Structures are given as C-alpha cells and as structure tokens.
C-alpha cells in the first residue's frame, strides 16, 4: 500500500506499540518535570542547571526526546493518511501527503538534534 510504506515500521501493530510505549515515557517525563516545578516554587539557576547536568536526567531527557519524535511521527502519520487522501484532495493527494510527512519528519529530526545540543551543551 502507498500509505503503508511511510509508516514507522511497515507494521501497524509495531506502530501501535511504539505509540503506547512512547506515551508512557512522555507521561512519566512530563509528570516528573511538572511535579519538580511545583515542588520547587522559588527555583534558581544553579538548581535548574544541576538538575539537567545530572546524567540520570540527561538519559531521561534523551529518552523523552526519542519518545517525542516517535510519538509525534505516529500521530502525524495517522492524521496524514486519514485526511490527506485522494477522496479529500484528488490527484495531488500523494504529493501533498508526502510533502506534509517530509516537513513533519524534518521538524522532528531538527527538534531532536536541538534537544541533544541543549542537553550536552550545558
């Protein structure tokens, strides 16, 4: 199928699993971050910097970035293949969908690299 070739793994079941595993990672990461900010109302630079300089936090953040990329890709791929179809767009659907997915893929890759730069630049 033309729509299948662009999914993350060529397997719907694998994508389904990737979406859920990445969801749990992201939930844990954001609940931790929001909880940390709530628990430390008068947060200063030194403490904030120390948190992200910690190796465990770097690994957790990197894991969250990977999960964000995968989660966003599965989500945007689903939207693209559900709505950017020949039924909605006619003959140009494949080109439009490919361009949309390309922009999404580049954005996710760029965010990932940017995130790594921030984590290892401090």
């Amino acid at each position, binding site marked *: 199928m033309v729509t299948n070739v662009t999914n993350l793994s060529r397997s719907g079941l694998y994508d389904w699993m990737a979406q*859920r595993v990445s*969801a749990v990672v992201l*939930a844990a990461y*954001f609940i931790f971050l929001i909880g940390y900010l709530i628990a430390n109302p008068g947060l*200063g*630079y030194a403490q904030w*910097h120390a948190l992200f300089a910690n190796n465990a936090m770097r690994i957790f953040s990197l894991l969250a970035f990977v999960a964000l990329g995968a989660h966003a890709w599965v989500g945007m791929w689903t939207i693209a293949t559900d709505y950017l179809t020949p039924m909605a767009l006619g003959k140009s659907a494949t080109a439009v969908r490919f361009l949309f997915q390309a922009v999404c893929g580049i954005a996710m890759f760029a965010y990932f690299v*940017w995130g790594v730069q*921030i984590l290892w630049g401090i």
Partner: protein
Amino acid sequence: MLYALGKSLGSEEGFGEVKACLTSVLAKLVIWGLLSALLYHLVAGIRHLIMDMGIGETLEGGKLGSKIVLAVSAVLIVLAGVWIW
C-alpha cells in the same frame, strides 16, 4: 519551549530573562494554553491505555469514560491556571 529550555540552561542571565518573560500576562496565557492541551492529551491518552486493557470498552463504558476524561481534564486545567497565577 526548547528555546526557553536552552536559554534558561545556557546562562544565569538567560535563566533570569526566561523567568522575567514568564511573569507577563500574555506569556502566562500561552503557558496555560500549552499546559491545558498537554493535560487533556495526557488524560485522554491514559484513558486509551485503560481501554487497551479491556476496561470500559462497551458503549456505556465509552460514554462514561469520555465524560470522566472531560471532568478530570477540566479540574486539572483549572488547577494549572491556579498554579500559574
């Protein structure tokens, strides 16, 4: 968000700039909006995981679940607003 993270981690001045920026009403509204979307997505996602386990998969269960998601999200979003202000 990444820009703010990078700036706040990059230097003490950057941290101060981000902190000062976040005191404005507009910035608080934007943060509240982003946090609201995240919280709703999170609550609805947890419901999906619960339904994957086979809980609440009937028509009535689905209707009840969606109402619970809306109610829990609304409470969390109000709490987020209280926290931000």
